[in-house]
Every structure is written in structure tokens, then in C-alpha cells.
């Protein structure tokens, strides 16, 4: 992938490293990494639990729940995503030594791609009106096939994100 990383991103990271010396700071204070990872895992659990519960209901689990109210849990899942985004940025900035280990990392590229696809999946869900359509479904109702496809894709993509994340330190720039 020659588009990635874009030059503006690399320049930005170089500037941050030169100005704040953040990577050095992280290197000397290991606890930052532990706190960051812990928060990252908590964020992903929040995301999987709330958005996952919504997806699972659409796929037919816990059928006596009305679907609409479950959507009210989703903002918490988004908060979890934001937490992951913030800690993720901290990992990248804190690990930038001239070039960044993440950018040459195949697992990182796949992870970002999966997140992008998950975002597109959600966008499709809302833009096509599926979100509004399922919101009125009550206890015992089945979601339409399109919604089930979106739900299944969502679950698969987020699991893929977790797995890719787990392989970040392993694959590195191996490929």
C-alpha cells in the first residue's frame, strides 16, 4: 500500500516527536503503556458489549427484547470506540521513532481496514433507513434479512479488529 502512510501523517508525527519528545517520555515511563492498553481493552469491551448486544438481537438472540431501546446502548459503544481511538493515537505517537513500527505492520493495516469497513457498514445501516426500520420492532419480532447481514458483518469485523490488534506485536514488519 503506497498510499499509506500519507506524508502529512508522517510529518505530523515527526513534528510531535521533535516538539514534545513524547516517545522518549513513554519509553521512560512504562506505566503509560499499561494504562493506555488497559483503557484500550475497556473501550473495546464496551464497544463489543453494547453494539454486540444490538447486533446479536438483530440476529435473533434475546428475542423478547424490543430492538429500538437496545439502540440506546449504542452511544456507549461509540464512547468505547472514542476511548480506543484516543489510546490508539497515543500508542502511535508514543512509538514513533523517525519511522513508525505500525506503518510497516501488516496487522495494523488490516486492523485499520477492518475498522474502516465497520464504519462503512454502520453508515450503510443508517443511510439506507434500516436503522429506523428496526427501531420500531418489538419483542419477538425478527429483523429483516438486510439488517441481519449488517449485524453479522459488524460482529465479524469487530472480532477481526481484536484479532488483528492481538497480532500487532507478532507480525510487525514481517511481510
Amino acid at each position: 500500500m503506497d498510499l499509506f502512510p500519507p506524508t502529512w501523517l508522517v510529518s505530523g508525527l515527526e513534528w510531535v516527536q521533535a516538539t514534545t519528545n513524547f516517545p522518549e517520555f513513554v519509553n521512560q515511563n512504562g506505566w503509560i503503556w499499561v494504562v493506555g492498553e488497559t483503557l484500550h481493552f475497556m473501550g473495546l469491551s464496551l464497544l463489543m458489549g453494547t453494539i454486540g448486544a444490538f447486533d446479536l438481537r438483530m440476529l435473533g438472540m434475546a428475542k423478547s427484547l424490543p430492538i429500538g431501546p437496545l439502540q440506546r446502548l449504542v452511544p456507549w459503544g461509540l464512547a468505547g470506540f472514542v476511548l480506543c481511538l484516543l489510546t490508539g493515537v497515543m500508542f502511535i505517537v508514543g512509538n514513533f521513532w523517525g519511522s513508525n513500527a505500525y506503518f510497516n505492520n501488516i496487522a495494523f493495516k488490516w486492523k485499520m481496514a477492518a475498522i474502516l469497513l465497520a464504519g462503512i457498514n454502520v453508515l450503510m445501516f443508517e443511510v439506507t433507513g434500516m436503522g429506523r426500520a428496526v427501531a420500531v420492532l418489538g419483542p419477538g419480532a425478527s429483523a429483516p434479512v438486510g439488517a441481519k447481514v449488517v449485524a453479522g458483518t459488524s460482529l465479524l469485523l469487530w472480532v477481526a479488529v481484536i484479532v488483528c490488534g492481538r497480532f500487532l506485536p507478532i507480525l510487525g514488519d514481517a511481510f
Partner: protein
Amino acid sequence: MEQFLVWLEESRLSAAIAGSLFMYPGILAAHGVGMAVVVGLNVAVSLRVLGVARMLPLAAMAQFYPMMWAGLWVNVATGVLLAMAGATRVLVDPVFFLKMAVVALAVLNMRRLKRELLRDSGRPDGSELPGAPGDSPTWSKRSISVMAVASIVLWGGAITLGRLMAYSFYRFWQ
């Protein structure tokens, strides 16, 4: 004891796990997915108990528990494999034993919460919010809310301790 740990770590199963590029991180990845399922769904139920999405019938949230137990079993299985493959490092780590204690408490709390959710599930008027008039005294809003908060705190603690297991720089006792 030390010999037993070495034996565990050098067993063929452990060697198979440690020897392959993908086995150990694969098992860790499954452990992570299990964690997301168990902690995530527990937090979702806790959020409902604490008042988010009040239109969701409380007792019906119990239907997510089978998925939670599935996640828990995945983590028990992967956890055993991980502990075996790193026996000389894991089974002497006080952080690991603390994590096990916290997980045990979290699971006990999970079971109690589920019992409370189902306790008044046969109500004809559909009012299932804790603290509604005519509640049986056993289902007090306070006790179920305490369990919901405890769930979040305990599982958060398990995640934190799990992460701490990977680092040793803070272990002043070694």
C-alpha cells in the same frame, strides 16, 4: 513446585503452543474476544440496571447470559493453555492469582445479578423497573444497582490485572 512448572512449560502441548508463530497469539486473540464478550455484555446489562435504555425489560436481559457463559468458557480454556505454556512465569505471579480471585468474585456477582433479574419475571403489569411500587422486598433498587456497579468494577479490575501480568517493571518484590 518449580519442577512441576518447568514440566508443564516443557510439555508437548506447551511446546506446540510456544513453538508456532500463530498458536500463542491466536490463543491470546481468542482470550481477548472472550473478554470482550463477557465484559461487554456484563457492562451492557449493568448499564440497563443503572438506568440506560429503560424501555428494555429488565428480566429479558437475562437472555444474554448464555452468550456470556460461552465467552467465559472460551476464556477458561484459553486461559488454561496460556498458563500452561508460560507456567514458570504465570503460576508464580501474585498478579495472576489476584486476577483469578477478582474473576471468581465477578462470576459470583454475575450469577447473583442474573438471579435478581429473573426473580420477579412473572409480573402481569409489565412493570419491571427496580423499585416500582409493590416490589417484593428482596428486589430493592439499591441492591441490584450495587451488583451492577460491582460488575463493572470487578471486570475492569480483571482487565487491568490481565494487562499488568504482561509487564514486570513495577514488581518491586522481585
